[in-house]
């Protein structure tokens, strides 16, 4: 299938916060209450449309446990977006956000778009982290924020798509050199780089037109 762009995402966060379930809900539109433990990394992919352009999201779903961090770190490289997930019913998963963020800042490219997701918002009665706290943390660290539920699918699409839209905007704004794949963006065969997408493309073609 052709796409204008391919964005690589990575999903990170403590073990058991629902990373794999978010992915499954996004790619397959279903919820699996008993999901196998993720060892290493799993992959998911889905096409979305932004600004009438087909965009393929390739999503890397990682294992959350501390002892896998050394592996997870190597996946940050070349990711355009990250979903940093915590569980609103477990305070400690929120407390660990700072260390996840530090990892991401250290090992990812500086322009990586990070979306903070407070998952399991269907379990409001067991809430241990308020929405405001989530918002506050996101604001402090320059992240996009949403509460979502992999179980009810609430905000799941939105989270993935909003992240993609942010990345797309960065491309439009010329933040990325899309020809450099280390930013986690590939220009597809089916797509024409946007008017200001990429530094080389437009100037070259514009030059062609004018002369």
């Amino acid at each position, binding site marked *: 299938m052709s796409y204008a762009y391919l964005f690589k995402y990575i999903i990170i966060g403590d073990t058991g916060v629902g990373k794999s379930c978010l992915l499954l809900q996004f790619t397959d539109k279903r919820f699996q209450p008993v999901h196998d*433990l993720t*060892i*290493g*990394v*799993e992959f998911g992919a889905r096409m979305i449309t932004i600004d009438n352009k087909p965009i393929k999201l390739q999503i890397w779903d990682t294992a959350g446990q501390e002892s*896998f961090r*050394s592996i997870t770190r190597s996946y940050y490289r070349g990711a355009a977006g990250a979903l940093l997930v915590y569980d609103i019913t477990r305070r400690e998963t929120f407390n660990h956000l700072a260390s996840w963020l530090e990892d991401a800042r250290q090992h990812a490219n500086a322009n990586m778009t990070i979306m903070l997701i407070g998952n399991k918002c269907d379990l409001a009665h067991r809430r241990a982290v308020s929405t405001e706290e989530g918002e506050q943390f996101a604001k402090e660290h320059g992240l996009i924020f949403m509460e979502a539920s992999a179980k009810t699918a609430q905000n799941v699409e939105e989270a993935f798509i909003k992240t993609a839209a942010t990345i797309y905007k960065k491309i439009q704004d010329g933040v990325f050199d899309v020809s450099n794949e280390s930013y986690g963006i590939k220009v597809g065969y089916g797509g024409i780089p946007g008017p200001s997408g990429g530094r080389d493309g437009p100037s070259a073609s514009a030059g062609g037109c004018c002369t």
Partner: protein
Amino acid sequence: MICGDKFACHCPNIFSHASNHSHFSFLSSPDPRTSHSNSSFLGHERGSSEGSYRSSGSREKRIGYLTTGVVQKPGCLIKDLLIPTILLQWRSQGIPCYNKATCSSCERTLSSLELPRAVPLACGPSNMSVDESILNENQERADNGVNNGSYGASQFHGRPFHGRPRHKGHDPGRDLSIQVLEKFSLVTKFARETTSQLFGENQSNGFGASERRTHIQTNIDHPKKSSNMVEDSSDESPVALDSQEFGGMMVYFFISIGPFDNLSLVWGKPRQPPLGSEEWITFLDSEGRITDSEALRKRVFYGGLDNELRNEVWGLLLGYYSYESTYAEREYLKSVKKSEYEIIKNQWQSISSSQAKRFTKFRERKGLIEKDVVRTDRSLPFYEGDDNQNVYVLRDILLTYSFYNFDLGYCQGMSDLLSPILFVMDDESEAFWCFVALMERLGPNFNRDQNGMHSQLFALSKVEFEYEKTMRFWEVLWAHYPSEHLHLYVCVAILKRYRGKIMGEEMDFDTLLKFINELSGHIELDAILRDAEALCICAGEDGVARIPPGTPPSLPVDDGSFYVQQDDIL
């Protein structure tokens, strides 16, 4: 020529088209790159090899001639060039890569060393004598041809190579290879040292030609001439190494661990049906001792166990029970170990809630374990459904283990290892002690700097196979036959099997990782085990010598504490 007739006589169908003309072309070729065109008959793409010839400009005509000969006489090539091809492929590493096409054609050529292609040589005893004569004849001629070739080549190639800037910087191919090797859990130091040796010398001493030459000379059992030839080639190998990618490295790896003329003659034996009860009895004396443990391990290696026997044999394979023990001794040990288990289990069960409040590590581990056991093999009837007792037993065993081995504690993935054991043993204490024995074998993998490795070992051990196959695979590994490091050869066998695809598509790291992940459930266990056996036999003593002492499951060589205390690992 005489040899042509000889082949025609032995094998008319295949070789009757042999012509003197092509022999001559081959022999007189000063260009070892003829091997590329040969390789096209071993199943590789022609187009790209031709492309690479074209790129070498002035010799186009001569090569074109050879290529034409090749096209017209496939039979002849197969006959003449089987062995030369292998030799020349090796040689071709010494060819400067003028461009990408040339490089990839080198790789394709190299990849024809794959076992399946070489295997027909060993197919039947009746072919054997023919094959051997082919080997000898061809080798002689190859030696001549190749010597000429390398002479010509070094003259010819000398200038373009030296004038050409070398890529000294970042080599994605090298990165990739390291990653692949890691991913496939050439899990131990063995892999790391081998790769760093390969790539390290590539970087550090410039090109490591001398080191390579040593390996080649010591390891390849060929007549003098061919080792001269190889030596010639290694003089040039720096060139190719520079841009040589993964394939060449892997081939080098294989060649460096064993004489490659064995490679074509070895093939894993056909797998057998699982060992059943009736046959099992024959391994026991009247009191239940295993009379010949090696025979048993061999039998398990070739066929695995019937499900009903696993319960009895796994404890032995894992070393929990000794092979010399009698039925009575095993029963006695079982009861002793049962009370020992209960004591350890009671250590955490007796932790009060107020004590737990002040015991963060315990709470964290418990939380992790509880999160993980409900995500372990829940689709199996044995573990499915709410409030499944077996899930609680999993949790209890893992928590008990984290007290038995407090330094190591709990690491995600352990539940995956324990699950089949509990399923098979169906007894909490027995499952615990078998798990302990297994962890002893895997132990050093759990040190912190090898986190990546142990997770990969898990991945390989379980995730890649279905449940039944997992159990089969494990018992085969535990048989420690023909090598206790069989798992390394299994990894290599898997890599080899998909080498064509991996290299053909020039996968980048992401694609590769994805590809490997998706192999999950698609690995043919028996075929891979046969490949692994063959590799292991080929590698022989050299292979053994290259696995550093202390590589799991061997006992660690360093003394001191078995597990390094790590504060940040739960």
